[in-house]
């Protein structure tokens, strides 16, 4: 029975390998053409406070958020809601991409100054 079992496992394995290859290939092509230029939004960190503290972005599209840290110490943008974690070095700008997201409120905070560095991203349905 052993060779038959190994054959069964090999067939499953081979199918998965090919499936993975197909995913890689399709995703590679898709990533080139799937998205138009992302709309850009800006956040600033100054005195360990994010400004604006509430940022509205459209639902169901990917957006680019450029975060500028004007403090002289690093901050880490952290959000479980958005599934993002990124260090913003002192005096530098950094970019995060969020979405496409359904409408709702998504909270984030600065890991190094969680008492003051807090904010929300409000995802809103755009009316045509």
């Amino acid at each position, binding site marked *: 029975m052993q060779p038959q079992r190994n054959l069964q496992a090999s067939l499953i394995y081979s199918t998965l390998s090919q499936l993975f290859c197909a995913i890689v290939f399709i995703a590679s092509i898709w990533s080139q053409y799937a998205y138009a230029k992302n709309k850009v939004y800006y956040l600033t960190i100054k005195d360990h406070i994010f400004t604006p503290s509430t940022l509205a972005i459209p639902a169901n599209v990917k957006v680019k958020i450029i975060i500028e840290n004007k403090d002289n110490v690093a901050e880490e943008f952290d959000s479980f809601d958005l599934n993002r974690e990124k*260090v913003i070095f002192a005096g530098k700008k950094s970019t995060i991409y969020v979405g496409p997201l359904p409408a709702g409120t998504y909270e984030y905070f600065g890991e190094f100054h*969680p008492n003051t560095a807090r904010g929300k991203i409000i995802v809103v349905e755009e009316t045509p």
Partner: protein
Amino acid sequence: MINKKTNTLLALIFTIVIAIFTSLAARADGMVVDKVYHPYVVANEQSFEWRLMSSQTSAENVLAQRIGYGQSLLEDLAVEFFIIGERDETGDFKLQATEIEARWMLTEQGQYWADWGVLFEFEKQRNSDRYEATTGLIFEKEFNKNSLTLNFFAIREWGNDIQNEWELEFRAQYRYRYLPELQPSIEFYTGEDFVGLGPGFMGVHRFEGQKQLKWEAGFITEVSHKGKNHTLRFAVEYEF
């Protein structure tokens, strides 16, 4: 970080390499169930990690543990050093090997349709002439509060005390990000004649600053063979 064209080219090269390796499969020697890797690297981060894998069949009980120290060297590159202990055939638990691992985050999270990373590992057995090098692609795709993570690794084993061969491993995890502390998942592992499936979970608890404790566990059952073959995996990582 790489640009869009290089990213695509790299992914296509990996596709071809993986397809070639598929035809070179040989018998697996090690424990396939380990950890599903995620492609992300956070700058300025250090970590201590402990992993445990306990595999039970009707014939044997295999136990492997590893302790590691990791550090991100760049915004998109992290390395980790491990010492690995395993229970040997006489039942003694011994230091078995050392390993260095590097994770390279290829794309900014969320920038493209999916996020990509690459893993490199080099392992040296302590008391025998056995070496193992691993490389492979890490893929993660978000669907609202769900994440699909795929790992595809090609492994080369060589040395005087082991048959020189290529091995292949595929790992998958479908995770629901329910709460930071509790993110249930389904995990899937294959490594030549092993096909395993089972539930898992992971979680994180944040302390102040970059300090956080991550944990993950899974209970994987071999599904392609008859007979008992279960693996419990558990990992704890303290990041600071």
